[in-house]
């Protein structure tokens, strides 16, 4: 990776608190390349129009671009366009499945399984569903390294299990879960599996057919597209069996007071005027990362992770939280008994953006018996020089705080 890639991200070239910005909060949201920024700009400057209905030129152009984006996403994860639903983000994808699939197919006494290290978005919708239906939420425990304990998962599975929902990669610790094995075991008891791909899509190739997941959700803004757009993938036969999530325009075939018939997939789950430029930006982002190549991105990020792990451990008193064997380029850490927030403020003073807190994973923090961590998360535009500068800044902050 080189300067030509960084040149594609205008936001990276600025001074924050007197220092060049070092952006290490990519797990929260990624920055946008010119290809994405220009796609949004072009939409509003050249062909802003409502899609799927207008017969005029602009509407046709907008519809074509929006649907091309759907195709780009479908090809990217090896699905068909009918299985690609535009949603607001991973959170909405989970809520959609919990509501539309859950309300129809979950009954009292059924069980839903999540892991102990899920994001709140992958816990709360299932809790709400369980409460409504009298179902039970079961939790896969984790070990101290931040890996799910697979034998315990196998013990939780039974004919009562109806849904398993798990992140591909933990946002808090970066652990990569063995989702393919999780999925095949769940299928043995007849459960469907939702994969929270929010942290996976920016870092690695995800092939829904290879994984054989039933649902997959991810957020555009974490994968270099604009905010407010995301994807729910679902196997066609499951999406067909589900009721719509929201009623309104676009999702109908015909409406009368005698009864309404719903539109075909994927429009059945896309009520209202969609986030058109968001969808287009996601298509542009997918094309952009495919131009660079996900294999190349993953290899470079592995190199960054190895480097940052080595360099961070040179800081006195620093301990890494989450030492799974299989990790993405996310590093959670603590220094002695310094509160993460103090470190975050003093890094910000030196132009470095990290995340501090519980990372929307309070059950995980309870399990690890900590209040929170500092988290540095990397994208392919980050550099080893930035890691060196961060190590220097951390040492300076730690000295002041100890």
């Amino acid at each position: 990776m080189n300067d030509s890639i960084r040149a594609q991200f205008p936001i990276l070239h600025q001074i924050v608190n007197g220092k060049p910005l070092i952006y290490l909060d990519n797990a929260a949201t990624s920055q946008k390349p010119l290809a994405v920024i220009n796609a949004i700009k072009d939409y509003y400057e050249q062909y802003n129009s409502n899609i799927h209905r207008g017969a005029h030129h602009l509407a046709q152009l907008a519809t074509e671009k929006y649907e091309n984006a759907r195709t780009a996403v479908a090809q990217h994860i090896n699905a068909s366009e009918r299985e690609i639903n535009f949603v607001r983000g991973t959170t909405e994808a989970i809520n959609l499945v919990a509501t539309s699939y859950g309300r129809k197919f979950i009954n009292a006494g059924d069980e839903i399984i999540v892991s102990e290290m899920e994001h709140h978005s992958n816990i709360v919708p299932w809790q709400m569903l369980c409460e409504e239906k009298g179902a039970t939420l079961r939790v896969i425990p984790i070990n101290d390294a931040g890996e799910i304990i697979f034998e315990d998962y196998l013990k939780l599975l039974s004919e009562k299990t109806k849904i398993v929902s798990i992140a591909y990669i933990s946002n808090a610790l970066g652990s990569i879960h063995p989702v393919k094995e999780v999925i095949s075991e769940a299928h043995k008891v007849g459960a469907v599996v939702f994969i929270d791909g929010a942290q996976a899509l920016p870092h690695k190739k995800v092939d829904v057919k290879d994984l054989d997941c039933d649902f997959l959700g991810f957020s555009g803004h974490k994968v270099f597209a604009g905010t407010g757009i995301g994807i729910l993938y679902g196997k066609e036969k499951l999406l067909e069996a589900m009721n719509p999530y929201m009623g309104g325009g676009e999702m109908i075939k015909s409406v009368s007071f005698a009864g309404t018939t719903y539109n075909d997939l994927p429009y059945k789950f896309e009520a209202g005027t969609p986030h058109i430029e968001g969808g287009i930006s996601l298509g542009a982002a997918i094309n952009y990362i495919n131009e660079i190549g996900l294999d190349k991105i993953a290899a470079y990020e592995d190199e960054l992770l190895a480097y940052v792990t080595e360099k961070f451990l040179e800081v006195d008193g620093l301990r890494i939280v989450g030492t799974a064997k299989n990790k993405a380029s996310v590093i959670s850490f603590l220094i002695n008994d310094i509160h993460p927030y103090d470190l975050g403020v003093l890094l910000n003073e030196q132009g470095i953006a990290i995340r501090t807190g519980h990372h929307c994973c309070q059950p995980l923090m309870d399990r690890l018996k900590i209040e929170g961590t500092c988290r540095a998360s990397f994208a392919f535009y980050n550099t080893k020089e930035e890691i060196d500068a961060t190590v220097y800044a951390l040492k300076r902050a730690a000295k002041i705080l100890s």
Partner: protein
Amino acid sequence: MQKSIAEIENEIAEEFDLFDDQMDKYEYIIDIGKKLPALDAKYMTDDFLVKGCQSKVWLHAYEKHGLLYFEADSNTAITKGIIALLVRVLSGQKGGDVLLTPLTFIDKINLRTHLSSQRSNGLTSMIQKMKAYAAAFACVEQILPTFPKLK
């Protein structure tokens, strides 16, 4: 003789004027926090927690000889320094003065702009909580006729 809120604020502003570097300012704030007397454990409960901060801040107030006193603690070093500054300015003052004097030292030492918005909200929460205590004590002081000034 107890110094006025404005006098203490000016003192603090002068102390911070000595630093050019923001990191040095933070180091000074952290040192101030370290010198804050420990808060009695019985006040470090949720009842005394200031809402709206990412870090935890416990605040206790009491009245003695007609003056209002504050004691506080925090689980983070920087916030502890900030609350220590607020205690230094507002503790030992008349409740009415705490309530009605606008605080200017935060802007003077250029703290607010260099703290995240969330932290800044936390700062606002701390000040509001101190003023709420003052309002309660001010009622006891029977200065109710001055309240319309708040509008």
